[in-house]
């Protein structure tokens, strides 16, 4: 299911359709997280990806009015070469998987592993410094984005 939607993301002609398919793909990923009993990640995936990032994409598309659909088509030669390259990557990974052999089913060793309580303990004990640094990263990204997106006062 998510494979189908992912294929549609890269093959849709209209970028708006492409974004909507991306929403569906992320939704299937959220379902996967729930199946893996990772509830915190499922919620974060739902909010951050399907909420924030996709809205950001849609707004950008709205800013850059793309209705004329002016994307020039690449030659078939390049397309075939690209698909071949991606296929080669896939074959290599799958072949490596074949060498490893059959694996065990994914058992939930710890039933409350992915719950918010457990993850919060790990996050704020062992990973406190990376957590603070990531907050700095987000702040600098926000400032940088605003700085880039505002017009230069000299040229405007």
């Amino acid at each position, binding site marked *: 299911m*998510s*494979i189908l939607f*992912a*294929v549609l*993301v*890269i093959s849709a002609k209209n970028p708006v359709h*492409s*974004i909507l398919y*991306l929403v569906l*793909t*992320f939704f299937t*990923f959220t379902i*996967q997280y729930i*199946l*893996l009993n*990772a509830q915190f*990640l499922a919620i974060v*995936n739902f909010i951050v*990806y399907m909420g924030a*990032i996709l809205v*950001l*994409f849609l707004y*950008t598309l709205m*800013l850059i009015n793309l209705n004329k659909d*002016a994307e*020039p088509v*690449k030659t078939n030669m*390049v*397309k075939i*070469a*690209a*698909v071949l*390259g991606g*296929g080669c*990557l*896939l074959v290599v990974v*799958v072949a490596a*998987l074949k060498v490893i052999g*059959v*694996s065990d*089913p*994914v*058992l939930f060793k710890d039933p409350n*592993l*992915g719950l918010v309580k457990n*993850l919060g303990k*790990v*996050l704020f004990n*062992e990973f406190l410094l990376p957590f603070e640094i*990531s907050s700095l*990263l*987000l702040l*600098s*990204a*926000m400032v*940088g*984005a605003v700085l*880039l*997106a505002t*017009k230069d006062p000299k040229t405007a």
Partner: protein
Amino acid sequence: MESFFKTAQTVPLNHYILLSAIIFSIGVIGVLIRRNAIVIFMSIELMLNSVNLLLTAFSVYRGDATGQVFVFFIMALAAAEVAVGLAIIVMIYRNTNSIDINVLNRLKW
């Protein structure tokens, strides 16, 4: 609901690896065949997400919460990256009136 999770427990780890590999390859192909900068960005998001799923699967498989914390950091990073990247795309569009990446040929060495 209980039987549903019982069935979900029988999925082998290999299937998760396979799914992630396929999605990652689709992302790579998307980067290669499209020239619309925004679609290329979305392909990068696809790749990031497939890696996230793989990390989560391994973390559940090993019973170790570190992997899921790492996925959380990757998500924060992806949010920052998308914000800056889309700002750059908007700026490119203002300067060149198109988001075709071939316009940026001048960046070639």
